[in-house]
């Protein structure tokens, strides 16, 4: 009882989480869902993560102090990132709709969805990459400079080797962020259920499909719940499995009987 009174809101969230899981369990139904939905979602989200990574990584290099640029460039980059990070995805979706669907003439297509998701992912990836680079930018970069390794080589060769697991985790984080975003892509991806044959084909992404099933299709709520369950399981695996594997791998390496201290002694 004491625990409940002191942690009552944490207990409340535990109960809400149980309620969430229980709501989505039951017989799974996928009668209105085609393979095109899953393939389109996979291509759009992975594609957006790949496209957004390089510019985000470069900008993160500036903000983490790897590249030396004039102070005004750094301030300008920081301001753009800050404003973009605070923009709701519906506004970024409207921008994507105007630029990619209308101006560039891609229409409601996989390509428009990928490029819109890049807008959403960009500031999130920058923030994550800055956190990765900041601790190593000072000490290790000095060492790299003494070995005549330039900042670009440091960013694109040394860091990925040294921080491979963390970078992988960050890219997965970007992917999950892209998977979770609906408002931005609902304006640019289209609604066709068919398998996309090119990037200019209209696709229906999974989250938007869930929304349409829940709100527009009579009797579609049961399938929406099944797909929501699938999304939760998928996100859970993507978010926690790499960390778990990395922890197991690290602890397994630590348990190797070879101990350098013993040898030195």
């Amino acid at each position, binding site marked *: 009882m004491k625990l409940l009174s002191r942690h009552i809101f944490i207990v409340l969230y535990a109960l809400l989480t149980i309620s969430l899981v229980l709501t989505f369990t039951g017989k799974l139904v996928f009668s209105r869902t085609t393979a095109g939905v899953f393939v389109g979602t996979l291509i759009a989200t992975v594609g957006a993560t790949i496209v957004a990574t390089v510019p985000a990584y470069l900008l993160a290099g500036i903000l983490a102090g790897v590249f030396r640029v004039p102070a005004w460039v750094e301030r300008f980059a920081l301001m753009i990132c800050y404003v973009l990070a605070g923009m709701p995805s*519906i506004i970024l979706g409207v921008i994507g709709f105007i630029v990619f669907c209308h101006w560039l003439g891609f229409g409601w297509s996989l390509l428009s969805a990928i490029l819109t998701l890049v807008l959403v992912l960009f500031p999130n990836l920058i923030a994550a990459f800055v956190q990765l680079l900041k601790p190593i930018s000072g000490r290790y970069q000095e060492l790299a400079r003494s070995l005549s390794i330039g900042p670009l080589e440091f960013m694109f060769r040394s860091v990925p080797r040294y921080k491979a697991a963390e970078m992988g985790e960050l890219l997965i984080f970007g992917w999950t962020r892209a998977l979770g975003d609906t408002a931005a892509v609902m304006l640019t991806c289209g609604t066709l259920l068919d398998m996309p044959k090119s990037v200019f084909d209209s696709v229906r992404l999974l989250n938007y499909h869930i*929304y349409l099933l829940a709100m527009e299709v009579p009797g579609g709520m049961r399938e929406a719940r099944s797909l929501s369950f699938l999304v939760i399981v998928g996100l859970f695996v993507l*978010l926690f499995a790499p960390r778990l594997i990395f922890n197991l791998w690290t602890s397994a390496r630590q348990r190797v009987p070879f101990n350098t201290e013993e040898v030195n002694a």
Partner: protein
Amino acid sequence: MSTVIVLICLVFGSLLLIPLWHGAEFFLQVPALSWMSMQWAPDLNVYGFGVPLIGSTLLIVATLPLTLALGWVLAFQTVETTNTNVRAVAIALMQTWASLPSVVVGVWAISTMLPAIRELGGSGYSLLATSIALTVFIAPSCALLLMQSYGEYRAAHGDLERALNLTAWEKTVYFVKGCGSELTHIVNYTFCRLFGETLIVLMLSGNMLQIPGSPFDGFRTLTATVALEIAYATGTHELALYAITAIGTIVLIGLLLFSRGRRHETA
């Protein structure tokens, strides 16, 4: 390198100006009396932003204090607890809720919350349902930010707090006084999330073009109007939706730059 970075920033930054450009076109074309009215009827060429603007404002007024209060209580309980297992579980729960897609939360709210609210009155699709669902959804993200700030604050002032034997309420007051700029940033972040959240609002608000007379009435927000109508809008109607986006963009850019300025000043 500077040129490349400036170019990347200019490309992304200039994209934000696009809705403003189209919005300006609308405001120049349509008389102020039309867009300041309470009637939104694109068929009649009347584009009054009043009703969705009031809907957005009411939603924020109802939800922002609830979200901040719940976020603070969660953050406070998590930081103050001495039980490491409870803390680990609390953080995992908050991270899980923060990473959930809004459409999933929407489906959950329709399945569990709407029937309960329907028992109280109305169709269930209401300001109350939307407000509760948004609070439950956004409070964990807010709590994670508050936890970071409060954790840093407590690391610096924890000994003093213990020495003075402060109550929870006193700790809250001192924290608010001590971390004003950080809190402004968190309040603005929460505001941006609430203003921009579309899917949960679309699923729970009922999307009725009316000013809600009670918490059990349906309503419509600015972002929901854009999401619902942009697919088939043409001409002035399309420009009106861009103008709504422009209003949102201006408000949010203003808020974000203000909170960034305050944080910069404090730093």
